[in-house]
């Protein structure tokens, strides 16, 4: 299904986006699971902020590009018949160009690199035209969408956690990502020393799982995380400092909780 609120007749030509006179680039999705749509939406939004990219996620045509899975062309032939924008294929898709293919599940850094590459080509005039981009109907990327996208990104990460994925920081986040938020600092601190799932992060930091999921999505979008698959699912580990990969939700020994709490009280925290 074409991922918008309406289902288009198979014969309808889906307008691709005319060349951008303004700098906004519209990305849609075809035949993706809702959780993947949510993830793509979240990544587009993140990179728009962190990488200053021109892409927005669009729920409805016109599009400059769409993200499609391997079965999209068979499932939505009408869409592709009339679409001459860019198609980013997820995973191996017969006939798809290597430049417009990223691995599936989507890796944030690969997706970011593709967005940058395609932005450069589009804004350099690959689709040159002096026609304004149609005004987008309200509601595509507004607050409810944001909430849904965040929830979707969290759901996507929770899903990947079920696959045994753990996340560890490879680099301390900048002030723009931490924003002076003590909760974010706490999460980042734990992730700087341990590979943790979202559930584990929530258990350790006392932050709600949704907040942890949003934060992990933010860090992932910024390319700051190393994803670790649990040993049971994948024999090869990525290189890490000598720390055990925590499998079950960890609990801090009470005595040490006491020392930290006592010291914080003493400092007036």
């Amino acid at each position, binding site marked *: 299904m074409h991922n918008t609120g309406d289902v288009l007749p198979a014969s309808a030509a889906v307008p691709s986006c005319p060349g951008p006179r303004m700098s906004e680039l519209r990305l849609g999705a075809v035949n993706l699971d809702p959780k993947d749509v949510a993830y793509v939406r979240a990544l587009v939004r993140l990179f728009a902020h962190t990488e200053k990219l021109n892409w927005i996620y669009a729920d409805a045509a016109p599009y400059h590009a769409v993200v499609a899975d391997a079965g999209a062309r068979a499932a939505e032939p009408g869409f592709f018949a009339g679409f001459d924008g860019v198609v980013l294929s997820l995973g191996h898709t017969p006939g798809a160009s290597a430049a417009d293919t990223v691995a599936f599940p989507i890796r944030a850094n690969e997706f970011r690199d593709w967005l940058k590459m395609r932005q450069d080509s589009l804004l350099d005039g690959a689709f040159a035209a002096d026609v304004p981009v149609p005004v987008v109907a309200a509601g595509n990327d507004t607050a409810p969408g944001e909430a849904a996208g965040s929830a979707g990104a969290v759901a996507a990460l929770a899903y990947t956690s079920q696959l045994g994925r753990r996340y560890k*920081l*490879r*680099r*301390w986040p*900048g*002030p723009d990502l931490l924003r002076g938020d003590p909760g974010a*600092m*706490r999460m*980042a*601190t*734990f992730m*700087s*020393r*341990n590979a943790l799932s979202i559930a584990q992060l929530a258990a*350790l930091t006392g932050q709600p799982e949704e907040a942890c999921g949003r934060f992990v999505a933010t860090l992932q979008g910024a390319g700051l995380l190393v994803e670790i698959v649990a040993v049971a699912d994948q024999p090869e580990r990525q290189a890490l*400092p*000598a720390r055990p990969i*925590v*499998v*079950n939700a*960890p*609990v*801090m*020994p009470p005595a*040490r909780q*006491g*020392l*930290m709490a*006592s*010291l*914080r*009280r*003493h*400092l*007036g*925290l």
Partner: protein
Amino acid sequence: MKEYKLLITGTMGAGKTTAIRAISDIAPIVTDVVNHDSSVDKARTTVGLDYGMLVLDNGDRIRLFGTPGQARFDFLWQILARKALGLVILIDNSRPDPLADLAMFLDGFASHLETLPCVIGVGRTETHTTTTLDHYADALEARGLVFPILPVDVRQRADVVSLIDTLLGQIEAGMDLDL
């Protein structure tokens, strides 16, 4: 009663003594002497150690040790780092090459930093902007290290407390977690 140790190191003039003074429950013991190094505009310098203490409500004590900042005193770094709970590295961003300063301490404490929780506090980031916090993160990432990097003014007690709070978070995160 149990005793623990927190160590504060960093370049000369970065504020190690000031930081300890800001939070210590006792008047800090300092071993500073006249500075004869004209390359640093400072009248006195620590050549032994600074010592402060926090006495917790259950009687446990946290000993605060400040090291000399110059590389020629690195033998003291090794001695003072033994059995420390955590390490704060204070860097003065106004110095000619603060990243080289950071490298000196990362090298000097390298064997300890494989497991020792650590926080980097960078002073004078507002007035000296050539080296940014991202640069420090770059430097750590190049060594495969991930430590919190905080802008601080150690003359402000709140900043020192924030630094220690972050270090406590590192200590908590680095403890062996029960399954």
